[in-house]
């Protein structure tokens, strides 16, 4: 490589921003505006073509709910929702999601062991295969204990892993909790260091999201019940797990989640200490890869 080229790559690296990313943003926003126009066109077209208009109306809803509104939310929330910790996870569209209502200390392995012993099931990651399995199990009415949960974001990252408990005989209802590893050297507001944050909520039924009009799970407004359920099952399964509580940590987060459901909480943040749990024994090396 010549010196001139070396110099050029070095300068490109020194620049904090990227022109390519700026171009991506142009396309991102242009596509958002164009999709609004497309939604308008399909809306007016659905009146024009008689009975086929019914089909066009369904297409219009799908377009609006799954492409147009998410893109608009993504653009707007990038501007107005802060990226730093505000006690709430965010949906992939950038909207406020489930409240963070649990903190943990310990290694990933220890959390996995503690939850497994408390009869929680690890959720599969969202892939084409697992999505297909959801459809297949819904149609055949078989249960899918490891069904994936939707991605929620904290610290700009998707959850590291999620656990769930099915409610017998009801595919619309389930307990679930998502876990994020905190960045190194990060402290909770108030100055407490924890290793993990988690958001546990209970799906009550299937409904339409208020903000994106998508089909989604509605969650129980009283998020404290689910939080206490998680702690109760963990401490019952392993007496070495201890819990301390930060009182009124999130009092004042009386709001809605990303699906537009309202949330009620007493604001307490329990910190679950699993550091005395003995993690999975080493013969299963594949599990240690999940810890990162």
């Amino acid at each position: 490589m010549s010196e001139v080229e070396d110099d050029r790559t070095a300068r490109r690296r020194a620049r904090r921003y990227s022109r390519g990313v700026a171009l991506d943003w142009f396309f991102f926003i242009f596509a958002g505006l164009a999709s609004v126009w497309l939604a308008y066109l399909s809306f007016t077209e659905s009146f024009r073509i008689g009975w086929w208009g019914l089909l066009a109306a369904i297409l219009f809803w799908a377009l609006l709910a799954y492409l147009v509104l998410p893109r608009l939310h993504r653009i707007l929330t990038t501007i107005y929702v802060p990226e730093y910790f505000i006690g709430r996870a965010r949906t992939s569209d950038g909207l406020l999601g489930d409240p963070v209502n649990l903190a943990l200390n310990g290694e990933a392995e220890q959390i996995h062991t503690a939850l497994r012993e408390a009869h929680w099931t690890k959720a599969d990651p969202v892939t084409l295969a697992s999505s297909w399995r959801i459809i297949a199990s819904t149609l055949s009415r078989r249960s899918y204990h490891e069904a994936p949960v939707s991605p929620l974001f904290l610290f700009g990252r998707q959850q590291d892993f999620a656990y769930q408990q099915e409610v017998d005989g009801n595919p619309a209802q389930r307990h679930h909790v998502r876990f994020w590893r905190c960045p190194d050297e990060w402290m909770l507001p108030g100055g407490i260091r924890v290793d993990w944050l988690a958001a546990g909520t209970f799906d009550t039924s299937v409904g339409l999201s208020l903000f994106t009009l998508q089909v989604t799970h509605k969650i129980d407004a009283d998020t404290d019940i689910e939080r206490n359920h998680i702690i109760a099952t963990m401490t019952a399964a392993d007496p070495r797990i201890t819990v301390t509580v930060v009182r009124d940590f999130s009092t004042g987060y009386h709001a809605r989640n990303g699906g537009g459901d309202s949330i009620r909480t007493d604001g307490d943040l329990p910190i679950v200490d699993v550091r005395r749990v003995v993690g999975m024994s080493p013969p299963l090396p594949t599990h240690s890869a999940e810890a990162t």
Partner: protein
Amino acid sequence: MTENKRPAYEPAARLLERTHYDPHMHRPVATMAGSALVLLRVVAGVFHLIALALQWPELVDASDTVVDGESLGPAATSLGLVLVFVIGIVALAVEALLALLIYRGLNWPRVVVMGFAVVSISISFGAWWVQDQEITINTTFVTLALDILVLLALSSRDAAAYARRSEGR
């Protein structure tokens, strides 16, 4: 005691930060959908060409091309048909190739296809807004919808991160 502390601070330039370096990233659904939609666009183009070939004699009769006072004979007409076909097939082949390269995760074909989509959408919008040109199912609605869906899929963050997964290191 000086401890390292992580502040909650976000400069505006952060929006333009490079995507994550992750060469082993899984191909996201957006990239697959994007390249599939580009292929659908190619299929739509093939149908256009076939329709054009079937209507060609009528089109020539209707326009009755006259050059230097002489009506063009059947030889020139079929030559024109071949020319249009060759150009059309080459363009569609290039587009299909771009779809394949996008699927493989290259960035420049993604940018090229999005650039063409922006131009095409802008022209349609201009004609619709200024000249009141109708956009219905029977005319250009399907191709316009495909262009916009291609742009939506390929400009999504997943698709961008995948196409740029080897950059930044």
